[in-house]
């Protein structure tokens, strides 16, 4: 019997066990998946909680529901991996051996990495929305907030779902307009990047959208600390931005056990081959989803496209064959822009987001890099697709690799 051990039963890990259980012979392979949290969180839903669009109870379901028959779900914390012994130790001291290991433990916000962020203003005037706890607390705060300086802030790249802070700013603008208090709110968007987004054409579009909404952008801001007394964020080059309400995206890091096991980079992401997701150091360890150091967005769509490629490669690799499929970094994100509209972007390692139609060239129905109501509906519908098709590993009618068909070439 050969053993596949998957660490993490989030978006990526759940897709992996669903895809592989149906492909690997049950008489030959046992599959175990380990995760400390019995609840599966629909993370894209966090964005909507502060504005009351979703209630906290609407974004979680039991993990066990999405784990197929023939896969053992172990609810436990990982202490460390001993790659030279092919064993994983759990925090209770027990060990699980493996023939192949897939690390899918994602990335999490670490407010403690920034001095002062967890100070006395935490969840009083300093909030994050990348956790269920944070977005719920922020919803309570926004309900009674009477206005002032709202600062939407990114601590350090990479972060998961890199468009979410922009979406938050757009939705906040829309929310305050609906409450007829937009004139009492000053919104500033603070980023360590040199523009609203990394890729020039999308950055120009998104920058224009911020400007239209009178949202000020502060670029190249690398946070040193949060001053709780003055209610300011302070950068390493000594700029200070005052806030009445700070909505920050803390530093994101991969799981601590990855660092403890010597398997990670400075942010605990596992260095892997960008086309196959095979560890650069170990021939029987893969890392998928946000846990890997792929130079593309940390996002569920990337995990989905990557795992289509990974599955084919994994079957070849365990058979001793060469892996013949190459991931291209394909990412695809709906960007909520407020007022019942949204935008869609589609890109990969080499090609930045361009205007056009998706997924069918010329027809769409979704328009790329353009705000439409249909894109917004697409984002809301995606929740159903996520629970019912994506996690169970059903084939979606979307190609895993990015296509240039339907895209328009644009001068940057």
């Amino acid at each position, binding site marked *: 019997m050969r053993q596949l051990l998957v660490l993490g039963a989030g978006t990526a890990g759940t897709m992996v066990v669903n895809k592989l259980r149906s492909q690997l012979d049950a008489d030959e392979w046992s599959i175990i998946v380990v995760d400390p949290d019995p609840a599966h969180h629909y993370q894209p839903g966090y964005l909507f909680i502060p504005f009351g669009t979703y209630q906290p109870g609407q974004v979680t379901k039991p993990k066990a529901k999405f784990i197929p028959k023939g896969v053992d779900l172990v609810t436990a914390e990982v202490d460390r991996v001993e790659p030279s012994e092919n064993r994983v130790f759990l925090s209770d001291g027990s060990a699980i051996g493996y023939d192949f290991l897939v690390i899918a433990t994602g990335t999490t916000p670490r407010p403690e990495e920034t001095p002062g962020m967890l100070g006395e203003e935490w969840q009083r005037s300093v909030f994050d929305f990348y956790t269920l706890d944070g977005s719920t607390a922020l919803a309570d705060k926004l309900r009674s907030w009477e206005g002032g300086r709202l600062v939407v802030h990114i601590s350090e790249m990479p*972060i998961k779902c*890199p468009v979410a802070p922009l979406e938050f700013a757009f939705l906040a603008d829309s929310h305050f307009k609906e409450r007829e208090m937009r004139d009492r709110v000053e919104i500033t968007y603070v980023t360590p*990047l*040199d523009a609203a987004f990394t890729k020039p054409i999308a950055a120009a579009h998104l920058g224009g959208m911020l400007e239209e909404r009178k949202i000020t952008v502060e670029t190249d801001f690398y946070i040193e600390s949060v001053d709780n007394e003055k209610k300011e964020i302070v950068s*390493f*080059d000594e700029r200070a931005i005052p806030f009445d309400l700070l909505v920050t995206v803390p530093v994101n890091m991969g799981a601590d056990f990855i660092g403890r096991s010597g398997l990670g980079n*400075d942010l605990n992401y596992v260095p892997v081959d960008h086309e196959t997701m095979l560890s650069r150091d170990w021939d029987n360890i893969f890392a998928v989803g946000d846990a890997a150091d792929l130079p*593309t967005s940390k996002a569920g769509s990337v995990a989905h496209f990557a795992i289509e490629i990974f599955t084919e490669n994994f079957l070849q690799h365990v058979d001793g064959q060469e892996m013949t499929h190459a991931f291209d970094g394909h*990412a695809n994100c709906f960007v909520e822009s407020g007022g019942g509209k949204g935008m869609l972007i589609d*890109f990969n390692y080499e090609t930045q987001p361009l205007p056009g139609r998706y997924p069918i060239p010329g027809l769409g129905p979704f328009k790329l890099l353009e705000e439409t109501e249909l894109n917004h509906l697409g984002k809301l519908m995606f929740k159903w697709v996520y629970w019912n098709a994506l996690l169970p590993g059903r084939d979606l009618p979307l190609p895993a690799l990015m296509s240039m068909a339907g895209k328009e070439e644009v001068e940057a």
Partner: protein
Amino acid sequence: MTLATIAGQEVHVDDEGFMTEYDEWSEDLASTLAGNIGIELTDDHWQAIRFLRDDYKVEGVTPTLRRVTNTGGIPTKQLFVLFPKKPAKKMAYIAGLPKPAGCV
């Protein structure tokens, strides 16, 4: 990718002027590149530049600010003093390394 002449030498650069061939770089070139962005190299600058060069050689990626601080041992605050405003980009530019992977 285009060819540019820096300090009398032909080198490959990307459209923002970052050198793309590790071995085309030299210490003389670094001084010229630094001058292009208004920086005069001191020993402290060189400590950072040498870390970037050595780290890239092993890792194959331009190190992040976090890495220059954690592994290279140079406080982030000092990097902002040495390479004002955009230390990650400026260090990579002078060290003749690819533009740091703008995260996506």
